[in-house]
């Protein structure tokens, strides 16, 4: 149940971001309420990843504000936003290739488990970090691949690992940038099932191209075109929105499940 009148967990107001002459984010405003799964869709070049990067701090907006949990985070560096409970998965897989899957996730857990200026004890032997890693990896279906170096994981497994890493930081808001990019049918279905579980525990912003998944999961959908919001509302409203159909869904032959 999503209470759209509740205080928003994430409030974006009039965000603007330019790259030279290109306006990637054009006066964008957006709300995400606690507990919802809010999807962001749009054609390629709509500025979805640019938006996510500004939300998590990899990019600084030219103007506009971002409030998270009531707090202005517009100028905060990304590591501080992570500490406040904002987690992200990357569209282009961004992991630590020399380490194992477990190491990657354990590090994420370590970042939120006190300070890391400990120079003597073996971090790989810290039971609660290892347990947290094990739990996150089992969750995303990688229990069998815990000690495999990232470079030896398949693309699909790496996408799942991205999610596990984000989860291990115990986020309040999870920003997922095309988690299903490059996944096969079975893997996608597994990811959708997983997200259905996760949405009960954490607020999710999902950027995706897979329309089946979006309409199956989303409480609300925001449509982005050329960095602007052209529509925002529940799935039924979006599906019947003329402007959206013209701009984006028109060519999609998608059978959307109800409910």
């Amino acid at each position, binding site marked *: 149940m999503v209470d759209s009148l509740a205080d928003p967990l994430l409030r974006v107001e009039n965000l603007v971001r330019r790259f030279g002459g290109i306006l990637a984010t054009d006066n964008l405003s957006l709300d995400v309420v606690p507990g919802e799964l809010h999807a962001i869709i749009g054609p390629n070049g709509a500025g979805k990843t640019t938006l996510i990067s500004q939300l*998590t701090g990899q990019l600084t907006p030219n103007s506009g504000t971002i409030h998270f949990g009531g707090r202005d985070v517009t100028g905060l560096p990304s590591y501080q936003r992570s500490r406040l409970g904002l987690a992200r998965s990357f569209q282009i897989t961004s992991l630590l290739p020399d380490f194992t899957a477990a*190491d990657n996730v354990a590090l994420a857990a370590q970042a939120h488990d006190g300070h890391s200026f400990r120079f003597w004890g073996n971090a*790989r032997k810290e039971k609660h970090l290892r347990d947290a890693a094990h739990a996150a990896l089992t969750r995303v279906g990688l229990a069998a691949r815990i000690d495999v170096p990232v470079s030896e994981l398949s693309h699909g497994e790496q996408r799942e690992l991205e999610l596990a890493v984000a989860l291990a930081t115990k986020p309040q808001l999870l920003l997922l940038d095309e988690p299903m990019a490059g996944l096969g049918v079975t893997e996608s279905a597994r990811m959708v099932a997983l997200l259905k579980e996760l949405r009960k525990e954490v607020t999710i912003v999902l950027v995706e191209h897979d329309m089946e998944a979006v309409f199956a999961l989303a409480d609300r959908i925001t449509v982005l075109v050329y960095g602007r919001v052209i529509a925002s509302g529940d799935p039924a409203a979006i599906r019947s929105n003329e402007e959206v159909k013209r701009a984006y869904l028109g060519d999609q032959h998608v059978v959307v499940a109800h409910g």
Partner: protein
Amino acid sequence: MKLQINLRNVVVALVAAGLVLLPLYSQLSGNIFILTLFTRIIIFALAAASLNLIMGYGGMMSFGHAAYLGIGGYAVGILAFEGIGSGFIQWPVALAASALYALVIGALSLRTRGVYFIMITLAFAQMAYYIASGMSRYGGDDGLTIYKRSNFGGLIDLSNRVQFYYLCLGCLFGGIYLIWRIINSRFGMVVQGVRSNEQRMQAIGFHANRYRLVCFVISGTICGLAGALLANNTDFISPAGMYWTRSGELMVMVVFGGMGSLFGPVIGTIFFLVLEEVLSQFTEYWALIMGPLLLLIVLFARGGIMGLLGRFSRG
């Protein structure tokens, strides 16, 4: 820690054993020269190990590490000159001065990346060189003779070659052990992660530069210790030891051995300095061979000696 029996580990074990037994060989054969040569090698290996910590594990290519050899050395030299001969005072001062210098230089230099970081560390090291050259009270360009080695009371006599050798070896093994523990600690994992993918580490909540800076300071401090040892070894300290080519040589020692490998710096330093010694016997112009050799190694044997051994281990 599981120890596999493979070529790399066997070589490392043999080298370590060789280093421990060297003074025995020296006594038996009467070859004093090999003892003094390897004392020097061990000290440089410690410096190279400290550089490997930030280069191989931390991904920070510092071209200014010779500065710490100088700072550590001058701490000992200046204090000795001013009448303070106790190692219990000199050496902590050497460590503290190196740490402070690393803190300031690191904080400034880490505002840049990549090639610019290399250039800036180089520039700051040259600055240290010029400061030392300008200290006319302490010999300036001519350097400063140290008439008495650091005094540690009845504990150990640094002017005894064998005792001094074992002290240096102890520092080397101790330093490597310390680095090993650091690498596998929480801190070390973060540093390695930051080298591997800084953006990812920031995204999960680590302030990358803070960890880099602390790593930089630790590395500089260990190298300062090597500087104190070196000054005692040569009974002399001069700005020439801080000239930027010395920093380059340290980098070469690390790369020869294999970056990011624990024992690599030791192997690399032994290889470099022994080769330099051997070549000098044949010709005054040993750089004519060493230079192109370095080029060839960079082109074809990038992983250094440990890398080559690793290839043969897996084969």
